[in-house]
């Protein structure tokens, strides 16, 4: 610049010092929601073509993707509307509203599911919620730790976003990392009597519990400490010990 007043400097001095107004953690949560909406919008068109039942191999890729309950704005979809391309869980009959976009304020749907978390002094509580705005998904599950003193720490809110939420097999398999270790969690649609997860070279039997609204939907989770697994493969057995299909909704985590 050759002139005596630098316009850029003047503009720079003009702008006041502002605070961002939210924490980076809040921005991360918003970003996760956008990521899932983007994925669901991208995958939605291909859902009808998904048919083959293949072995589920959950690739965690060293990355953590939260799958949050969505109201996929802009899709124009009606929650739980009849859709010829996919089966879907029933809509709530008790008038439970669709979850808020972060799932955090969702109205519980059915009875909460409780079990040992693997973390000392804390129980796992899983609450179903109604997902709005996705044609093939009506239900999502929020996994939380509840301490003996009643303090609740939300781990993940998960739901299927690629095809039917009741297609036989695993759905919404996710990794949640906390300061008390990691969880691999999700749900299985079908008559599973047990779920085993292979991770970090070990097989661990998952905690398994049925959803009160649809007993063929089984919520499961495993807890571990140390390094979070780079990959995890869940398998399901029926009451006779025979393997059940892993399903066509193999969850690929870490999709950016």
């Amino acid at each position, binding site marked *: 610049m*050759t*002139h*005596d*007043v*630098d*316009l*850029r400097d*003047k*503009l*720079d*001095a*003009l*702008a*006041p*010092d*502002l*605070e*961002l*107004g*939210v924490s*980076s*953690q809040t*921005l*991360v949560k*918003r*970003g*996760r*929601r*956008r*990521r899932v909406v*983007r994925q669901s919008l991208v995958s939605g068109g291909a859902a009808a073509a998904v048919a083959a039942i293949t072995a589920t191999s959950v690739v965690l890729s*060293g*990355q*953590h993707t*939260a799958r949050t309950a969505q109201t996929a704005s802009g899709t124009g979809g009606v929650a739980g509307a009849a859709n010829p391309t996919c089966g879907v869980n029933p809509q709530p009959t008790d008038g439970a509203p669709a979850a808020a976009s972060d799932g955090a304020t969702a109205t519980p749907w059915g009875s909460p599911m409780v079990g040992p978390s693997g*973390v000392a002094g*804390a129980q796992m509580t899983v609450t179903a919620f109604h997902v709005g705005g996705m044609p093939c998904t009506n239900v999502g599950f929020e996994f939380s*730790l509840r*301490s003996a003193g009643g*303090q609740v*720490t*939300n*781990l*993940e809110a998960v739901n299927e976003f690629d095809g039917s939420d009741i297609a036989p097999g695993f759905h919404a398999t996710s990794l*949640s*990392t*906390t*300061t*008390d270790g990691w969880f691999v969690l999700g749900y299985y649609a079908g008559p599973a009597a047990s779920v085993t997860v292979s991770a970090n070279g070990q097989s661990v039997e998952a905690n398994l519990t049925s959803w009160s609204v649809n007993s063929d939907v089984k919520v499961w989770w495993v807890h571990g400490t140390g390094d979070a697994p780079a990959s995890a493969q869940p398998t399901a057995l029926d009451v006779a010990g025979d393997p059940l299909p892993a399903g066509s909704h193999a969850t690929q985590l*870490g999709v*950016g």
Partner: protein
Amino acid sequence: MTEPIDRDQPEFTAFVAASSARLLRTAWLLTLNREQAQDLVQLAYAKTFAVWRRVRRDDAESYARRVLVNSHIDWWRRAPWRERATAELPDQPSNDSATATAAIAERAALAAALRELTKRERTIVVLRYYLDVSEADVADQLRVSVGTVKSTASKALAKLRESQELADFRPLARAFALEEQR
């Protein structure tokens, strides 16, 4: 008690800490409004995190700034109600010295002059003369021709130079004139 951890979060948090001041300044210059500037930057960060693994190794700040500008353009095109005339003036520290008082008066005059521009004119001024974005890139971002960028920038600088708000600040007006001749 446990807290959920996202493995991307520390890196993203550091990125936010390093870039937020610049993005907030840009957003404020685009909107001339504190709340809208915060909204724009928050939106830009959320969208950036949604694709973080793709953009983190590139220039994430450029990506976020592009999202910010595009969102601003989108807002003014689709939701003009978002734009509200306000009497907001930049918050700056002040003291009793004559120099500081003159600087404050100059900033207030410049802010008032910027408000006289159309949203497109102001956006082009910010992109070209604050962010130093090339005419071709501005044209690409605004989806207009390079000729439109040139003519709009020239018109905007002329309006600023001739603004009555800046009548008492000749050096500032001269800076606009010089930019116009570049």
